[in-house]
C-alpha cells in the first residue's frame, strides 16, 4: 500500500503545456549528466533525426550508395541497440473514412494500379457512374421524344482526364 489518501486535485494547470517542442534545456542537461542522451544540442523544431554524413573513418565504404542517399532497408540500430526511425521519406496514407473490408481491399488495389490517391479513385468512379447514368437518362428521354441533332444538355458531363493527379 503506497498511500491511504489521494492528493487533492491540482487547479494550477500544467506549466509544461506552454513549453516549446522537444526537450527543455534543463531536461537535456539532466539526461546528459546521466549519460542517457548525446550532449550535442538539437534544434527544438526538428521532428526527425538529422541525416548523418558518411565518414570514411566510421566504417569501410561499400560503394557510392553508402553516402546516405540510398534507401534505408529497415530500422537501423543505434550503438545502444535502440531502434531509430527510418529516414526514408514515406507518404502518409492516413484517412478519415472507413469502408467494408472487401471494398477497402479493392480500393487499395485500384489506388496502386492507378498510382494515385484513394480520393482520386473514388472521384473517378463516381464521375464515371454519373456519366453512365446521365447517358442512360438522356437515351430514355430521346426514345420518348425522338429528335435529330439535339444539342447536348447543359448538365452533360465533361470528359474526365484519365491521367491520375496526385494530391
Amino acid at each position: 500500500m503506497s498511500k491511504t489518501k489521494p492528493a487533492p486535485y491540482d487547479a494550477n494547470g500544467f506549466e509544461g503545456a506552454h513549453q516549446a517542442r522537444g526537450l527543455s534545456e534543463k531536461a537535456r542537461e539532466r539526461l546528459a549528466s546521466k549519460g542517457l542522451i548525446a550532449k550535442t544540442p538539437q534544434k527544438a523544431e526538428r521532428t526527425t533525426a538529422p541525416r548523418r554524413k558518411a565518414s570514411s573513418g566510421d566504417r569501410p565504404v561499400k560503394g557510392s550508395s553508402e553516402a546516405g542517399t540510398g534507401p534505408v532497408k529497415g530500422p537501423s540500430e543505434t550503438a545502444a541497440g535502440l531502434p531509430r526511425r527510418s529516414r526514408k521519406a514515406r507518404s502518409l496514407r492516413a484517412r478519415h473514412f472507413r469502408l467494408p473490408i472487401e471494398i477497402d481491399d479493392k480500393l487499395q488495389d485500384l489506388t496502386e494500379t492507378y498510382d494515385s490517391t484513394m480520393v482520386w479513385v473514388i472521384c473517378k468512379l463516381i464521375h464515371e457512374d454519373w456519366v453512365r447514368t446521365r447517358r442512360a437518362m438522356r437515351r430514355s428521354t430521346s426514345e420518348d421524344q425522338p429528335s435529330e441533332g439535339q444539342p447536348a444538355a447543359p448538365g452533360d458531363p465533361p470528359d474526365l482526364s484519365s491521367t491520375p493527379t496526385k494530391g
Partner: protein
Amino acid sequence: MPTIGAGLDRQGDLLKWMSQGDAVAKEDAFFERSEFLSIVYSPMVMPELRGVDLVVIDCPVEVEIALTVNPSMWIIPVHGRLGFENMHNVLSDILATKSTVLVIKNNGGRGGVMVDRNLDAALKAVKGLTVYADTLPESDTICRSADFADAAWNLPYANRKMVTTKGASAIKNMCTHVLTQCGFRKPPAVPQKRK
C-alpha cells in the same frame, strides 16, 4: 533495468502521473522517480535516448508525431466503435512500420455485451493486428489509479481481503504480457497470503 518514460503528449500526463504532481517536475520537465526510472517531458518530439533498456512512450494520436517514433511495439487501447474507427485513421501507417501492433480491448463491459462482441468481430476482420486475449475491464481501481498517481495494483484497496481485485490483476497481467513480448523475462510469481 534502466527505464525512461517519454511523454510526447503535450498534456504531460505521463510526467504528472509518475511525478505524482511534483511541482519541480513541471519546471524541469524531468523527474527521477527512482534509480532506474526517469520520466522526461518532450512535447511532440521524440528525444534520441541511449543506454536505456526500456523506453515507454506516451504518444499523442497525431499520425505525424506517432510516425517519428519507431518502437518495437505499438500498444493501442481500444474501446467501442469510435475507438476502433479512429484507430483506422493511422492504422495503415502504423502497420507499415512492421512493428508489432498490440491492440488491447479496454473498458470491457462498458456499454453492454454487444459493444464487446462487435469490437471482437471488427478486430478479427483486420489483418496484421495482434489482439491481446484478455480485456481490461471497466474498473474503479484502474480509474482511481490516476487519483493516487500510482500503479493500479499498488492502490490501498487493490488487494481486498488479500486478493487482488479484477481490475488491478488485469492491468498487471497486461503489463507482464507486454514486457515478455518485448523480450524481458517473466517475473517470478509472488504467492499471495491467505487467511
